[in-house]
Each structure stands twice: as structure tokens, then as C-alpha cells.
């Protein structure tokens, strides 16, 4: 089955997730779809599998134009997708999940279903107990169930979205063997969506690289890693000059920090940050950098290790102690976590003054709001509800609410979604704070921003933090390698 995607376009508001993407997917191959977070891989595959409709472009199956109104219509044409988070019903048993997919009669034939599940499982060496509840399965086993379900539905064309996140090494080996068998021996097509270079190298026959909604290159495998990195991250600015920073006293010390979550365990992170220093945290989403940043602010519990702010041990202390010690945390979701939709700017100004009087002087709060609006160039009125502001102005409000004289500022994606001018302005404000001795740690997915704004950069990959490198000694390529899980400089 040959699938052609021609000039696919998909927009979400102002974001062009797919901006005219054309790819041809041949039968009998494992086709890698490579790119950073937000490059548009998942969007493209959701368009192909009927999950969402493209805004423009054509999908052709064996030369015939098709359009799918739902995943159900796509699977009838043999196209099935395995989503990043398995789309199953955890409270139900394996067999019921399996039957739900294709036996649409009033009374499903359990015996036939069980036999099919056994037979398919044996063919791929998947050991799934039909009577087990899905809640008790690992992510890898849930994936296996999904694959069997798609095959039972007659999928000739199977899309896997980041299937190796959160599964064990033996499960991964088994998955790869299965995919090879499906493509090489059974002649089916497999699309492997990933941001992990090593896996794409190991598995795929052919690779298409996406960047910011566009195809930046295609290659037959094997292909030099350097070329793939370049296609993924692009070339950019010449290296930045090393600034002459007077390192102040140590502000933040993290010793042997370990944090665990459902999907990921962050292990043994050590970091020392001095006053006036800017540390950038790089890594693909879900690599552990956010868990670590939150743990620095007392928002995530440490499984081991210590966090000290200005020499005071804040390990296990609540977020309030971190604020009292001169810390601040600015999350990425401005309206989700940073600001309160429905409150006005004046109300925010009053609210952010943590130790303000218990009776609010609204006239005074309004005066201060007017003053901050002027100082931070916010397009809005003191009476404007924050959700009425643009993203850039909301981020300005987030900055305007930070108290003066901070010791440590933790930020997630300080300029995500902002235009260049707003981003520059935001960084001027942030860098002005380092003059007062504020240490800044920020997460970003933008390599140029990381290189340009940080003094040192630490890269997270699969829960491990690399030793921090000086930004001025590092190139986009080297960062790209680290982010995709290769040690810097090798194989270029």
C-alpha cells in the first residue's frame, strides 16, 4: 500500500503545524519521521489516520485521493495509528479492549476473539493474558495490545508515534523485531515517528525530517548523523562571544537529586548556580528538565538528594518556603498556571503582593497597575481581564508580577510563542535582573535562544543531565547531538 501526502496544511490559530508537507510512503518499508517537539510530525500523522482533517492538501492511497472523516474510516482503508498515550480503556480487561475495536455486534463473540488474540499474540511472541485488566499492564504491553488490535482490524499501514517512550529495553527490542517482521516479511508499511536519532538509525529504511511544519530533508538510511542533526535543528547564528561575567557567590546548590514520575526517573543531578548566572536547560519535552526545574522550586518531591538556596537547606520544604527565600517560578502555561483568567490586571497586582495588607487599597493597587503597565509596555488597561491580552502581553504581565530583588528565578519557556521583538524585550528585562544578583535557570526548546542567552547549558536526555557546557564554546550542532541522545561531536 503506497501512501502519498501532497502539500498537507494544518493550522491551529496562528500556528502552522503543517505548512505544505509532502511525503511519499512506500509499501514494505519502515519510514522514519524525525523532528523536534512541535515540528509537526504528530499533526501530520493524525491527518493521515483520520483523527483530524487537514486544512489543505491531498492524501492519496495507491494513487487514489481519499479523505477520512474519522479514524474508523481510515482503518477501513487499512491505515491505523498507535498514539503516544495508548488509546485503551484501563479499567477493562485485555480481551474486552480487543473486542471493542472490531466486534460491533450486540453480543460479541468472546470465544472467537480470544482465539484471535491468542493466535496473533503467538505470531508476534506477545504474551498477553486476555483476562488481565489493562490497568495492571506496562506501557509496553498496552502498546502490544494496540498493535494486535490494529492488525486484527486489517491495518496494512501502521503509524507509531514515539512508541519507545516509557518502555523497557527488552520490550523495545521485541517491538523493533515486530516492526521489521511487519515490513520485511509481510510487506506492510510502518511509519516510525521519533525524535531519537539512535532508534531511527537502528530501525528505519528511509527518513523524512520535519522542522517547524516543513520538510527539511529526506534520506535513505544509513545516512551520516551529522546530516540528520543539521536537518533537524538547522544551521544558525555564529557562536556567541563569551561575556565577562563576574561570578557571584553560589545561590543554588543541587546535590545528587533524584525525582521519579510515572514515565521517567531523573537521576543523580548535580548543579551549582552562582548569583547573576543564567543557566539554560535543553532537551526534548519529557526528558526530565521540567521535573528538575520544578524540584528546584519545591514543586516536585525529591526521591534523593538535597537542594540548598543561599546555603539554606530547602529539601522537602513546601513551595512557600522557596518563595520566602527569594525564589520565583514562572511556568510555561501563562493562562493555565501563571495568571488567573477572569481577574483583572489590578487584581493581579494586588494578589502578587504576598505580604500586602489584609484590607486592599484598590485605588493604590490600580495606581501600581498603571505604573507597571507603563514600565512593562503592556497593551491593556488596569481593568482588563488577563485572558483578553495577547500572549506577549500576558508574558509581560508574568514578568511584571515578579517581586524585585529575587535570588533565583526559574522559568519554563520564557519566550515560547512570542514574536522576535517581544522575545528580545523579555530577555532585556531578565538580563537586567542578573545585575542585581538574580540567578536564572530557564527551559527552552529553542537552541538559538539557549546559546544566545545562557552562560552555561545543561542538556537532559532520558532523565540524565549532561555536565553543563559553556554556551560560548558550544554550537547548535553539538547541542543537537546531546539533545538527540548522542555524545557531542561524534560521527559528524
Amino acid at each position: 500500500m503506497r501512501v502519498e501526502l501532497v502539500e498537507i496544511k494544518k493550522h491551529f490559530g496562528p500556528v502552522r503545524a503543517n505548512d505544505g508537507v509532502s511525503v511519499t510512503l512506500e509499501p514494505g518499508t519502515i519510514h522514519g519521521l524525525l523532528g523536534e517537539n512541535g515540528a509537526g510530525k504528530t499533526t501530520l500523522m493524525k491527518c493521515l489516520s483520520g483523527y483530524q482533517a487537514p486544512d489543505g492538501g491531498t492524501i492519496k492511497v495507491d494513487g487514489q485521493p481519499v479523505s477520512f472523516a474519522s479514524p474508523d474510516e481510515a482503518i477501513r482503508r487499512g491505515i491505523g495509528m498507535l498514539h503516544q498515550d495508548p488509546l485503551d480503556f484501563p479499567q477493562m480487561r485485555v480481551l474486552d479492549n480487543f473486542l471493542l475495536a472490531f466486534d460491533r455486534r450486540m453480543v460479541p463473540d468472546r470465544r472467537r476473539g480470544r482465539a484471535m488474540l491468542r493466535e496473533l499474540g503467538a505470531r508476534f511472541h506477545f504474551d498477553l493474558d486476555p483476562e488481565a485488566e489493562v490497568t495492571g499492564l506496562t506501557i509496553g504491553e498496552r502498546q502490544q495490545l494496540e498493535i494486535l488490535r490494529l492488525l486484527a482490524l486489517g491495518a496494512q499501514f501502521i503509524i507509531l508515534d514515539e512508541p519507545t517512550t516509557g518502555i523497557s529495553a527488552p520490550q523495545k527490542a521485541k517491538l523493533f523485531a515486530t516492526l521489521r517482521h511487519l515490513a520485511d516479511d509481510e510487506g506492510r508499511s510502518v511509519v516510525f515517528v521519533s525524535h531519537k536519532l539512535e532508534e531511527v538509525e537502528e530501525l528505519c529504511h528511509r527518513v523524512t525530517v520535519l522542522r517547524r511544519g516543513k520538510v527539511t530533508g529526506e534520506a535513505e538510511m544509513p545516512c551520516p548523523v551529522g546530516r540528520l542533526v543539521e536537518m533537524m535543528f538547522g544551521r544558525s547564528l555564529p557562536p556567541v562571544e563569551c561575556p565577562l561575567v563576574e561570578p557571584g557567590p553560589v545561590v543554588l546548590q543541587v546535590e545528587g537529586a533524584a525525582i521519579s514520575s510515572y514515565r521517567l526517573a531523573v537521576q543523580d543531578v548535580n548543579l551549582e548556580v552562582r548569583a547573576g548566572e543564567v543557566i539554560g536547560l535543553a532537551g526534548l519535552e519529557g526528558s526530565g528538565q521540567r521535573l528538575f526545574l520544578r524540584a528546584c522550586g519545591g514543586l516536585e518531591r525529591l526521591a534523593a538528594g538535597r537542594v540548598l538556596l543561599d546555603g539554606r537547606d530547602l529539601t522537602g520544604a513546601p513551595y512557600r518556603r522557596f518563595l520566602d527565600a527569594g525564589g520565583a517560578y514562572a511556568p510555561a502555561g501563562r493562562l493555565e498556571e501563571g495568571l488567573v483568567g477572569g481577574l483583572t490586571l489590578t487584581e493581579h497586582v494586588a494578589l502578587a503582593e504576598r505580604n500586602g495588607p489584609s484590607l486592599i487599597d484598590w485605588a493604590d493597587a490600580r495606581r501600581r497597575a498603571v505604573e507597571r503597565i507603563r514600565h512593562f509596555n503592556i497593551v491593556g488597561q488596569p481593568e482588563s481581564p488577563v485572558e483578553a491580552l495577547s500572549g506577549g502581553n500576558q508574558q509581560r504581565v508574568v514578568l511584571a508580577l515578579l517581586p524585585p530583588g529575587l535570588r533565583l528565578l526559574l522559568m519554563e519557556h520564557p519566550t515560547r510563542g512570542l514574536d522576535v521583538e517581544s522575545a528580545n524585550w523579555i530577555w532585556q528585562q531578565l538580563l537586567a535582573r542578573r545585575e542585581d544578583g538574580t540567578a536564572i535557570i530557564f527551559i527552552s526548546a529553542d537552541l538559538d535562544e539557549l546559546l544566545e542567552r545562557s552562560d552555561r547549558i545543561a542538556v537532559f536526555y532520558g532523565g540524565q543531565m549532561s555536565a553543563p557546557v559553556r554556551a560560548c564554546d558550544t554550537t547548535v550542532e553539538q547541542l543537537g547531538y546531546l539533545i538527540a541522545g548522542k555524545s557531542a561531536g561524534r560521527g559528524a
Partner: protein
Amino acid sequence: MKGILRLKNVLLGLAPVVLALLFTTLILVAVGAPPVEAYRNILSGAFESWQKIADVVAACVLLILCGVGMSITFTAGQWNVGVEGQIVLGAIFATWVARNLLWPQVPVLTLMLLAGMLGGALWGALAGLLKVYGKVHEIFGGLGLNYVAQGLAIWLIFNPWKPADGATMSGTDPFPDPAWMPRLGDLRVAPLAVILALLSAAVVYFLLRGTRWGLELKAMGKNFRSAFLLGVPSTPRLLTAFAACGALAGLAGAIRCSARYGRMLPDISGGQGYLSLLVALLAGYRPQWVPLIALFFAAVGVGSPRLELNMQLDSSLGGVLRASVVLAVMLVGGWRALMARRQETT
């Protein structure tokens, strides 16, 4: 242009009332009763005499106190359905004072009211504690605590507080005279209770609007995560919100046994706590609107038994009218929000 916009808003504000009347009228027509006469009966049942008007005002007191209290918890984003239990606990605490402290009227009444507030506040805080530390959703915690309070009241009435001639569902022995809240002449309304209820609306309006505490509750109610990251101490705020609402409900319970019955009953709240939830919803959690809406609810409640007397209709029709107003308000509100969102995306 501004005038037209204003007019549109007024019309949209009236739409739910029209919708609810339409719905109730349909029901009346369906059972073959003349609608206009039914509405006239409700009105005259509620306002034809000073005694009736006094009954309506008296019935407002609990609705106002609890409705105002729930404006606090709703502002903080919490569904405090535990008001029923908080009313009962207030009544129990007040009854203990009335039975045990044989003092003159002023100190006894003062202590009864304060004890009622304490009882309600503790019961409210308990729902908050269950939510914060036990991860029990406040709706389930509140409902559970309502049953516990009910059981406690029944146990007290049938055991330690048993009347001399045997326990019945009609409650304890009447309180000693000083524990009765003074009424206005022959009318069944206690002026002090009405004053306290109106005062509570004013105080809570000021607390929510003018204090840091009120602002923090509002922020929590609109976005819990953001409020937390901005440094709002969520646990103490949540507990004080529940306790404050509980205190007002407890006060209502104390007033109910002191001013209305002069004794403790197993069914002291009479389900009015749930009704006040509707009052708070209809007021959109703004305490300044609670008294007016409570008046409407109380009038329909006092007036609808007349349907049974004069027209052989079931008096529960009043309940249908009240509930359909609430549903219509929410329906129109939801519809307006949907329209606003559509306009935004196009």
C-alpha cells in the same frame, strides 16, 4: 449603541424568568389548571396579610445566611453541599447552651448564636480537612457529613435530650423562655434574625470585595494552580472558606431552633440548606443579590400551599417553579458563554 447593548443585557437577564414561567405554565396547562389563577394564588398566599409577609421574611433568614455563606465557598471554587449538616451542628450546639445555661435572655441568646456559629464552622472545616488531607471531594465529604450530623441529632433527641414523656420525631422539650428569640408582636418573625441575615450579606460582600482574603479566594476559585504558584496559601484559605460558610450555616441553625421552633428537631433544617444552594447559584455567588433571590424563593415556598387549598393542585408545584428558574438561568448562562466563544473564534 450603548443603549441598545444595555437593553439587550436586560432582556437576556429576564429571559430565564420568562423561560421558567413558560415551562411551569406548560405543566399547569397539561394538568388542566388555569395558569393565571395559579400564579395569583401563589402571590396572594405569600403577601395577602401581615402574618403571611412575616412568614415570608422569616423563611428568608436561613436562605440568606446559607446562600451568603455559600457565596464564599463558591468563590473559592468549592461546592459546600455540607451546609445541611452545618445547620444541624449549629442547632445542636445552640441547643446545648439553651438546655444547660440557665441565664438571662441576653447572655443566653448571645452564647447560643456564638455556639451555633462555632458548631457550624467546625463541621464546615471538617469537610475542608477531608478535602485537603483526605483527598475526599467536598461534595462527597459534605454529603457524608450531612448524614452523620443527622444521625447525631436523632441520637441526641432520642437519648440524652429525651423529653420527659418519651422521645418522638417532634423533638426535645421546649427551651426555657430566655432561649427563645423575641418575635415582633404576634407575628412569627424575629427582627434580630432578619437583621443578622442582612448584616451577614453586607459583611461578606465587603470581605469578598475589599480584603486580601476575598481576593485570594477568588483567585483560587478561578484557577487553583495559578493562585498556588502566585503564592496563595491554598490550604488555610480553603479551610477558612469552609469554616466561614459553616459559621453562617450554624448561625442559621441556631436561629431556626431559637426563633422558629423553640426546641431542637431531628429535621431542624427541613432541607432548606439544599434550597439555599440554588439561591447561591442563582445569585451567581454575589452576596449582594442573595437577599432578593431568597425573598423570591421564600415567597414561592410560603405561597404555594395555597394551590392545594384553593385549586386542589399539589403544592410541590412551587418547587417546580423555583427549580425551573435555576435551570433556566444556568441554561441561558451556558448559552451566552457558548455564543461568546463562537464569536471569539470567528
